[in-house]
């Protein structure tokens, strides 16, 4: 992987609802399109049911990402439990493909949260009141900045908020590390463990003559 996540500055769009699920982020009917688009080509499906009229083409004027001040948004602000529901990583690919690299919310669905890091998208946890405080400044657009190293988010008015992030995940984002490559460096350790486990739980290994 050659990408990293260090700092990000850009337009932030407020979508202040709780429980925005991954079906909403990427409706099911688009999932199989991955075979045509690959992981990078999924932005067009983001919020497919909310962004467009039923014809799936005409943008709905009342949807936040269709409003002129939020064009090119890199941040999304939401309420509790963002990304709950289905494990589809497509939800993250849709956000990233659209250009959103950071979602700020008080809490996240766990699988979604995890999937974000695998794709160098930052799911940033801030208390509800701080999400509201930033969102209140976004009526006319306005840029937000996140500095991952310093663990701060800066609102359009310059107010900075500190956020917590797991150090291991932070490092992954900053360095853009290749997970498979790192684990393979431990291959001997894995192999030794598996050999011992084979002796302990032989039934688990289906080549053990079952």
């Amino acid at each position: 992987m050659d990408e990293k996540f260090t700092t990000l500055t850009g337009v932030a769009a407020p979508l202040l609802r709780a429980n925005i699920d991954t079906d909403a982020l990427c409706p099911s009917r688009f999932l199989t399109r991955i075979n045509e688009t690959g992981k990078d080509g999924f932005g067009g499906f983001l919020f497919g049911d909310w962004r467009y009229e039923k014809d799936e083409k005409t943008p709905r004027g009342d949807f936040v990402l269709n409003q002129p001040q939020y064009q090119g948004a890199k941040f999304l602000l939401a309420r509790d439990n963002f990304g709950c529901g289905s494990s589809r990583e497509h939800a993250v690919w849709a956000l990233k493909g659209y250009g959103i690299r950071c979602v700020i919310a008080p809490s996240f669905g766990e699988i979604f949260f995890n999937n974000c890091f695998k794709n160098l998208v930052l799911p940033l946890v801030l208390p509800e009141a701080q999400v509201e405080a930033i969102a209140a400044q976004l009526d006319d657009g306005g840029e937000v900045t996140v500095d991952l190293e310093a663990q701060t988010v800066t609102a359009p008015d310059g107010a900075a908020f500190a956020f917590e992030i797991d150090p291991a995940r932070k490092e992954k984002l900053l360095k853009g590390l290749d997970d498979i490559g790192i684990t393979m460096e431990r291959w001997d350790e894995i192999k030794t463990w598996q050999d011992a486990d084979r002796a302990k739980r032989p039934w688990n290994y289906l080549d053990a003559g079952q």
Partner: protein
Amino acid sequence: MAQPRTLFQKIWDDHEIHDFKNGYSLLHVDRNIMHDLLGSLVFEPLDKRGMKMPNPELHFATQDHGIETETGRTDETKIAGGKAGVQGLRRKCKEYGITMFDLGDERQGICHVFTPEQGIALPGSTLICGDSHTSTIGGLGLLAWGVGLTEIEHVLATQTIVAQKPKTMRITFEGDVAPGVTAKDMILYTIGQLGAKAGNGHVIEYAGAAVRALPVEARLTMCNMSIEMAARYGMIAADDVTFDYLKDKPYAPKGELWDKALAYWRTLPTDEGAAFDREETIDATKIRPMITWGTSPQDVIGVDGRIPDPEAATSAEQKAYIERALLYTGLQPNQEIEGTPIDVAFIGSCTNARLSDLRAAAKVLKGRKVVDGIQAWCVPGSGLVKRDAEAEGIDKVFKEAGFEWREPGCSMCVSLGGDKFKQGGRAISSTNRNFENRQGVGVRTHLASPEMVAAAAVTGKITDVRKLAS
């Protein structure tokens, strides 16, 4: 004496290859289950590196998500890109030596249905799959969870996963459930009590006499919906009920290996005095047949209950929440939910499409007819479920009542394939998610047990199944 440990902790300890000392561990993955949504894409990193899989025999695949469920189906899907997924996965499984239960194979079915059925999932093991309802399989007493595609790439290449250790939570059911109350009602009630976020960051162990009394298939139903409480993992300790179920399953150990496995499995249940990060109790005597009224599984009431009133909400946020949900579901506050007319009745999915589910629904349907104009479908969870149901004549009961009897797959649980409900229709469904548009654009979903779905199909409206008891 050694520190008492939970079931979860024992499995975790026995799969930990490396502790990164930062809350994460490298865990061995005993089983990986794949489906057509992954297509060939998930094999890209292996292809690129020219790597071999270390343990292809520990991986299994099927076609379930995007395929059609009509009789005479082929690889063709009505959904764009679906066929490429089906064929891509097939090609790659062949190339890498992975066992696939393909279309046309009796063992083909929904990933979380065929896995227990084949004895592929065993107590005390770790299992991952690219579907959030993998928690289902924890009903056999193992650690099973849903992961994203990038994590599966890692498992294919290394047979391991980097996992963050969850907190533990035990939900204990006290008292017995009333007759006519199912595992689906138990779990829906629990989600209603604790909320859709309750399990975030946790592994849930379900306990108590009412849980122990459940047969394996019902335990799978219960664990299935753990994710609807935001818990990635749900589990029920394996016991004799589990062992009886698994014995002689095709991939379960045999002979001496079985005895050895059994001795190990018996050491796994949570020790007396083991501490959980969170403990909850549920009064099982309060549970009735449940039905959802909103757009999250937590929006649930007893079938004899009334639809919530936003005016009675305790906060502005809750008021807005109820209003929004009711706007979508088109229901009136304070109304009784019983009697609400429905357009669609669906029995299927990894939550409730096993043989016991179809039997229970057939009991209600027998000698009755689906009300005219209602689209009623039954999609068995696997080819084996279908075969066994047909051997008992259950298919005839469904068909005579006016249900369509279809081929196994996810179908309207995820509405990927050509399977479509009437736009904006009101559906009662034995599935697990009533999110907006989940079962088709504008479709309003009410989650319930298969029995309740059958009762609604033959009365044309949401009905307390206990009133139809014959």
